[in-house]
């Protein structure tokens, strides 16, 4: 079964930072993850899409550069979900 790892303030919505969550793709996995957790849904998703600044990584690659929410997820995969984060340096707003 795929694993989901939560980071930053997303951990406050879960008893464990690492969870076993079934799903064949990112969308299904996130749907299952948030099915019983309205706070987590609110933090990650909006109208079924990822909220701005939420990053989801599969094997260290951002799923946005794969097939987004349709990216397939295997039984051994780990999905890492990051809330809006910044630090360590400069960034550019525009």
């Amino acid at each position, binding site marked *: 079964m795929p694993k989901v790892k939560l*980071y*930053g*303030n997303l*951990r406050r919505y879960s008893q464990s930072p690492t969870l076993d969550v079934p799903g064949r793709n990112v969308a299904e996995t996130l749907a299952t993850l948030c099915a019983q957790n309205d706070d987590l849904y609110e933090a990650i998703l909006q109208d079924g899409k990822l909220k701005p*600044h939420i*990053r989801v*990584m599969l*094997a*260290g*690659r*951002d799923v*946005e*550069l794969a097939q987004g929410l349709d990216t397939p997820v295997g039984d051994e995969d780990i999905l*890492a979900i*990051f*809330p*809006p*984060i*910044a*630090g*360590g*340096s*400069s*960034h*550019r*707003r*525009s």
Partner: protein
Amino acid sequence: MEGWSGKILEVNLSTGGTETHALDTDMARLFLGGRGLGARLLWDLVGPEVEPLSPGNVLIFAAGPLTASGSQTSNRFSVSTKSPLTGTILDANSGGWWGMQFKRTGHDALIVRGRAERPVMIAITPEGVSIQDAAHLWGKTVSETTRLLGQNNNKRNVLCIGPAGENLSRMAAIMNDGTRSLARGGPGAVMGSKNLKAIVVVGDQKNQAEDRERFQFMLYETGKLIKASPLTSQALPEFGTSVVMNVVNEIGALPTRNFRQSQFEGAEAISGERMTDTILVRKQACWACPIACTRVTKTERAEGEGPEYESTWALGAQCGIDDLEAIAEANYLCNDLGLDTISTGSTIGCAMEMAERGLLDSDLRFGRADLLLGTIRSIAYREDLGDQLAEGSYRFAEAYGVPELSMSAKKLEMPAYDPRGMQGQGLLYATSNRGACHMRGNMLGPEVLALPRLIDRLATQGKAGIVAVHQNTAAVVDSLVLCKFTNLAVAEEFFARTLTAVTGVPFTGDDLQQVGERVWNLERLYNLREGFTRADDTLPDRMLKEPIKEGPSAGFTVQLEPMLEEYYQFRGWDSQGVPRPAKLKQLSLDELVLQAEGAGR
């Protein structure tokens, strides 16, 4: 013209003389202040014949037109000099309170020349400018010196060096307000070489905006943006800068054990999340900052400020250490002795690899947290092996015949991102004017955090232009001078409108981008004049030839050459990295170069 005080103070420690000059208003418009003004002044004052630790070098402390205006994060200032670590042009900037207080003394910049015969300090107060005996302070730590000189955040602010600067460590920082640092490139050693222990400032003047009504409006609008952004209103205040530890590790770009690996099994143990759960005591903000990213932490044995992400990495993953309390204490000690945490940690990591490979007779080994504090002390006081480590990782490794084990570019230690897993970051390190640096722009935003939008971190095509624009932006923010974190929420157009309100001089976002480009090109010209060439725009062999072995970035090296070609073209430079005449003319730098060439003849 408001915003600028209109005065530059010059103190000659060799003669004991002090003078005040008028600020050239054209220079102010072209270079603003801080880093830009410092680079412009340094161009005239310090040529290739000057050794960095000789009396001929200068220290230029510079505020910007927004400093002390009350605009969000308008607390910062910079120091410019020729670096004793890299030999390049150097500026380092810092927050806290000192910059605001210095501006309130009625000066835009302070130029320190010469060398005092014995330890001295400079005091700039409403009563005047004086050079005072500081023999009683020599040898004291940063915290002792700061306390003895009466640090009082909003009234009287202290900038000083610690033992590392006195002992001319090329990794020595200048510290202000006790715990803030002008860290990189060894400016503390330049201050030590001048026998200058401290600068105390007390100001009584205000930086009032030309158009106060418009300024108040911009203050309100900027505040709304900072509050609305989850980055500046949640992420940074809640977890501090170390919150990026886990994401950098997740993508396989967290340099580990002197960049031999790119993922650290102990990343979670030293992350911002763990810090918040364990040693965090409270958050703290610099003057006029609504973000409050600073951490005050406490271990069983000590309490202090930090560690920031880069420091946590350098004293942690880079050394194979996952003991957060040990890292925090090492960070406190670096601050108190006046050392750059990044270069110090990275140099220790380099020595650990050399010792493990049998190239160095030392007990240092990856993971030996118990040796951190002693090694740091030995560097600051130049004792035993520390005397060699104090030279920085490149000179240290070179002395043992293995300079390739120094993870540096232009002899400045690389910070906490493995460029093999972030190709644009590799180009950024290689072309950074002060050596490998994450504060001259940073590709973490576009390559990892999707700020402002996501690009493929492992691709190379098209990276050059993005890197250059980020470098220009960093240069102008450093010249205003503001904290780069405001740029997470606030676009440059807003900075331009605030600058217009404060100074009365019309600026647009495009104007600011051009200021940044001008500063970048002038710094490039300075380094070329020093003898740097295209061959110096490079990275350690490990980055170019040794693919990452495991993890999400496995198989990658930095594909530097094609990016460098594209970068020079984008910059308007020739194939050797020399700015073309048309570019210099566009940036109003052509006459400067012609004058220098004329003087040279």
